[in-house]
């Protein structure tokens, strides 16, 4: 990127307070962890204001200043709380060193349009910080789970050994437990058996329903659509209780078929919505052209319509699969212990015995989900390339 705006150094009265504000925020995080938020804010602001002043007005060497501060805070962190704290200290040190010079040299202005007012520049960066914070808040809970799943102890706790990065604090035993424990393996098997069957049912029925409901001559289209989508809107616990009593009477409660049907009912709305959306862009003259050439409706569907709406079908299917795979409320009612799925096992595990095996399973599921989505994306790109519609 080229600099858009000529830059110049900024006065002390501008950048020192800004660094102090950032320092106060960092101090809040550290202070809360140590037990006193207020002290953290004050100390953080004061220290970082001093750091910014000293670096830019006394040391003046950017590289030396940043790395010096990094080393200094790393040592301070190490003295306070071992290796993990040292890493955090180093990260803070590098950031505040860089931040001070970035503001002092006026580089923050370089890539922003020259005609922006200071307030617009402020919003420009605030907006980015908010976006970053949202991503951090979304992803941190998932990331925290991963190291904890290698805990050598049977609790959801970062032990002192783990924080010292001592190999003795880590172990694979929770993964071992998952792969050898018959409860978990049974639950995994049930999930793998139920989710695909439910997905295929939802995709089949959902696609047909969407195609039918997009025909203009069908009466009461909106009412039918509302009924089919209702499992998504009605609170899950209500559907679950209703299904329990209904399925009990017709002998489906506590059977695989019952759970598969219940999950299919939950997945159908997702398929209907995504397929209906893709059908909006579908040109009906294509089906007429196919009929004109002698294809019967079934051939037309599979050779003309299906390939064109396939992206909608696949993404609807993915949603249906995830709904079934993650579902815990309905299966608790409709299933019996023989149909215990992974979420059910995790749910009872969390309630009866807080074991990091749950975290190991969560980690595995996260990795599998990432792999699955990557594969789907790659397949999509490949098919687009084959059809000569490379993504721009």
């Amino acid at each position, binding site marked *: 990127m080229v600099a858009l705006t000529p830059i110049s150094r900024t006065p002390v009265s501008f950048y020192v307070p800004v660094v102090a504000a950032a320092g106060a925020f960092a101090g809040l995080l550290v202070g809360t962890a140590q037990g006193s938020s207020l002290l953290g804010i004050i100390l953080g602001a004061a220290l970082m204001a001093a750091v910014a002043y000293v670096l830019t007005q006394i040391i003046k060497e950017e590289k030396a200043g940043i790395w010096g501060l990094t080393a200094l805070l790393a040592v301070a962190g190490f003295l306070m709380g071992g290796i993990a704290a040292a890493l955090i200290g180093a990260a803070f040190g590098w950031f505040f060193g860089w931040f001070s010079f970035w503001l002092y040299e006026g580089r923050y202005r370089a890539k922003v349009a020259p005609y922006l007012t200071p307030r617009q520049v402020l919003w420009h960066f605030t907006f980015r910080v908010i976006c970053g914070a949202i991503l951090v808040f979304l992803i941190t809970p998932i990331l925290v789970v991963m190291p904890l799943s290698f805990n050598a102890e049977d609790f959801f706790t970062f032990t002192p050994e783990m924080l010292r990065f001592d190999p003795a604090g880590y172990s694979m035993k929770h993964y071992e437990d998952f792969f050898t424990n018959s409860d978990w393996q049974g639950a995994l098997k049930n999930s793998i*058996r139920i989710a695909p069957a439910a997905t295929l049912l939802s995709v089949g029925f959902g696609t047909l329903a969407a195609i039918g409901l997009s025909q203009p001559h069908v009466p009461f289209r909106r009412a039918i659509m509302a009924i089919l989508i209702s499992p998504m809107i009605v609170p899950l616990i209500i559907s679950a209780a209703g299904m*329990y009593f209904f399925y009990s009477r017709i002998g489906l409660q506590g059977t*695989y078929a019952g759970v598969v049907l219940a999950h299919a009912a939950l997945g159908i709305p997702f398929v209907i919505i995504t397929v209906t959306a893709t059908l909006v862009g579908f040109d009906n003259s294509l089906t007429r052209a196919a009929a004109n050439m002698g294809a019967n409706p079934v051939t037309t569907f599979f050779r003309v319509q299906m390939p064109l709406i396939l992206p909608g079908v696949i993404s609807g299917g993915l949603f249906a699969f995830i709904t079934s795979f993650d579902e815990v409320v309905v299966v608790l009612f409709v299933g019996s212990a023989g149909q215990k799925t992974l979420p059910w096992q995790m749910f*009872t595990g969390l309630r*009866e015995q807080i074991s990091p095996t749950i975290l190991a399973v969560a980690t595995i599921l996260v990795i599998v989900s990432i792999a699955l989505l990557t594969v789907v994306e790659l397949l999509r790109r490949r098919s687009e390339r084959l059809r000569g519609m490379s993504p721009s």
Partner: protein
Amino acid sequence: MKLTKTLMASTALTVAAGMATADGHMANEMTIVSWGGAYSNSQQKAYHDPYMEKTGVNIINDSSSSEAVAKLRAMNEAGNVTWDVVDVVAADAIRLCDEGLAMEIDPDEMLAAAPDGTSAEDDFGDLLVSDCFIPQIVYSTTFGYRTDMVGDTPPTSVCAVFDTEAYPGKRALEKNPINNMEWALLCDGVAKDEVYDVLETEEGQQQALDKLATIKDDVIWWSAGADTPQLLADGEIVMGSTYNGRLFSVIEEQNQPVAMLWDAQVFDLDGWIIPTGLSDERKARALDYIMFATDTQRLADQAKYISYGPARASSAPLVSTHADLGIDMAPHMPTDPENAKNTFLYNYEFWADYRDDIDAKFQAWLAQ
């Protein structure tokens, strides 16, 4: 379209496979409901595994005991009882029996006699608190504390829970009036044998809540037995109540810096019931399992895996050492004389009469 064909083929295959594996093996199966965790493991090793080996019946574990009463009611209403044997605490067994949801048991007819010929009725003795209930273990609800957070004077009395000056920090108590109300009154100067007389009155209930209010800001309320062990291991709390077996596991199996405070431990019973409404075949199987799993040796075996006392008098001398750790289990039993110097027996009649009333008051007080 190749992709379409592949999708179609896999659809057909998966649906077919799903249907084929469904419901193929109901015939020789039974569902046993219990509490999950270390407790279910001990039952698996002491009862289920030997029983499956002996008879070839496949046992499915369901850890739904905490909502057993509600679920059994729903099953009964729906006319579809899917559980064969259910592990519940004595108070729940009494409720289920009163509502006709649990089958009445004739101990001498349906349970094994002791090896020396003592009848089952005499062997279980006073612990047969309900006609439907087959006692299994004696457990206690008691306190554990962090040894590294109490200084040089570890607590010796349950009243340490209410003493936030000597033992600062959070405490964990069950989100439930049972036991908490009794402990509060005991530490507010009420004599042990008068606790339930006081608790019968409005003023007494208020007195207990007032005592609890003195530490309300320092309490973390737990609802699952696993919560307190996790909080203790985290160092989030200085002391907390839970079942003694959970504390045993934290101390001896997980080697956490935690110790037991046995003072004013509350004894309670846990055992089996058989739901009503089973087919004759399933009922016979459930009774056969019960006969096997509650004999003298089996009850003593369970104590190898968890520190709960067997409910039969004849099992006590057979309690040996822990299966993995090799330590002597007797000193870890709630009934050991050293631990049972000051105990409290859960009063079933009182709580059967006052539970709903006090529960409502307690929950309202919690929400204040």
